[in-house]
């Protein structure tokens, strides 16, 4: 088992860190400052991140769903932040255990705050990209009887939406790694923990998104928040079945 570092001396807590007053301060914060916030202003940080996720991912969700209609916009505006928060909370215990096991001495609250921070950064990026996404959605031909899941215009929009989410995710994780490295004093350890958290979050997050679908459009159903049949089956079962059909067709 790798050596676990103890938390730094209380001397760090004597000095009041810079206040988390604005988005700019949050986004520009260096790993040392983020660490101080996690130690000294944890509640402020968690609240700030939660609100940022709700607003940033919420606005992005509204724009995503607006192509289908106003109700879908409202539902996706609620579901996208919900998926993020449920993933974070659902994996909170697991992430809190994995971190010290892999070499970073974070408490449950601290690991929760760290994951929330990376999601908050991703949500800010999503919120900032919302006008661009709105422009993409506005330029996509509207939903008509001729539109199908295989239509190229729908494909372009889908790819753009997914691409921006991927970009936001990469940015969020790229900012988490220096924080973990700062905490662990070792980039290798930080990478291990980040990879473990990512694997767990992606695993749970995929299934939560599967349950909460659709986010853009379901051609076979009217607009609804969540349908009963979405609790049947799972994301990975569906992927497995699709792969099996493709390979053995």
């Amino acid at each position: 088992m790798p050596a676990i570092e103890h938390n730094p001396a209380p001397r760090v807590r004597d000095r009041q860190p810079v206040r988390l007053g604005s988005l700019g301060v949050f986004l520009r914060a260096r790993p040392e400052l983020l660490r101080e916030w996690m130690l000294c202003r944890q509640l402020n940080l968690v609240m700030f991140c939660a609100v940022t996720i709700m607003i940033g991912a919420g606005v992005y969700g509204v724009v995503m769903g607006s192509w289908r209609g106003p109700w879908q916009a409202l539902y996706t505006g609620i579901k996208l932040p919900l998926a993020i928060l449920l993933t974070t909370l659902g994996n909170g215990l697991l992430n809190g255990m994995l971190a010290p096991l892999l070499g970073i001495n974070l408490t449950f609250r601290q690991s929760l705050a760290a994951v929330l921070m990376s999601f908050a950064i991703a949500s800010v990026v999503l919120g900032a990209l919302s006008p661009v996404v709105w422009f993409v959605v506005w330029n996509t031909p509207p939903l008509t009887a001729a539109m199908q899941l295989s239509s190229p215009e729908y494909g372009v929009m889908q790819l753009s939406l997914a691409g921006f989410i991927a970009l936001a995710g990469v940015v969020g994780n790229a900012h988490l790694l220096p924080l973990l490295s700062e905490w662990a004093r070792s980039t290798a350890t930080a990478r291990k923990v980040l990879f473990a958290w990512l694997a767990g979050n992606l695993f749970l997050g995929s299934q939560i998104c599967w349950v909460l679908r659709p986010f853009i459009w379901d051609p076979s159903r009217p607009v609804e928040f969540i349908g009963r049949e979405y609790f049947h089956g799972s994301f990975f079962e569906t992927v497995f079945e699709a792969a099996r059909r493709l390979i053995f067709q």
Partner: protein
Amino acid sequence: MNNQNLIPPTTPQIPPPIPPVMASSGPRSLGDDPSERLAIPNVIVTIEAILRQPRRVMFQLRQPGAGRLIAGMLFVSVVCSLIYGVVAGTFSGGAQLWAVPVKIAVGLMISALICLPSLYIFTCLGGSQARLVEVSGLLAGLLMLMTILLIGFAPVAWIFSQSTESLAWMGTLHLIFWFIATCFGLRFLETGFSHSNARSSAGFRVWVVIFMLVALQMTTALRPILGTSKTFLPTEKKFFIAHWGDCLKGRDEASKSESR
């Protein structure tokens, strides 16, 4: 006998003074040069400054009252894009002489507005200390530099507009001019951010791609810029690559029917 080598010095030698940091040892800070600290009183000086003293513009964007400078730059951008729009509209004539200037000016402003939030966020994430006002100012500077360069290309564009009937050719030419002008504008923007203690420019590079794609799509969203149409705005929504493909396909079919 020489006693100098035997007697150690009783007082330490005073080291020579450290020479001041020379300019070649690193980038100069904005405002180091006194000429950069001169205020920019009007739009003519703004135009000259952005071409010949861009650092002066960058420095003034950090000073109180930068809003006036930003407003001036946006005003110049609008006027220049209107003028270039008139030149572009001479290809088709008629209603395009007023429709194209409006579309180019409005399209440019809307593209910038759409991309401003992501620019601010990406630059913050890169560690830049630039405030929103400064970021907006640098973006306004990009628009101004882009549009005044388009004015420089205007005579060339007009000559070609009068001597060809090929939509594809004129479209390509306008895109080339726009691309060259945008490159210079983006260079101004990047230089501006390099003075704001940014640690990484990866986010900025991603933003550049987004901005170019939004601007290209805007030309399709507001079509036709070249050619004529019964309506001011298109009735059908399309992405720009599909639109370009349709234009080229239409051109090939027209030339095939002419050759029969």
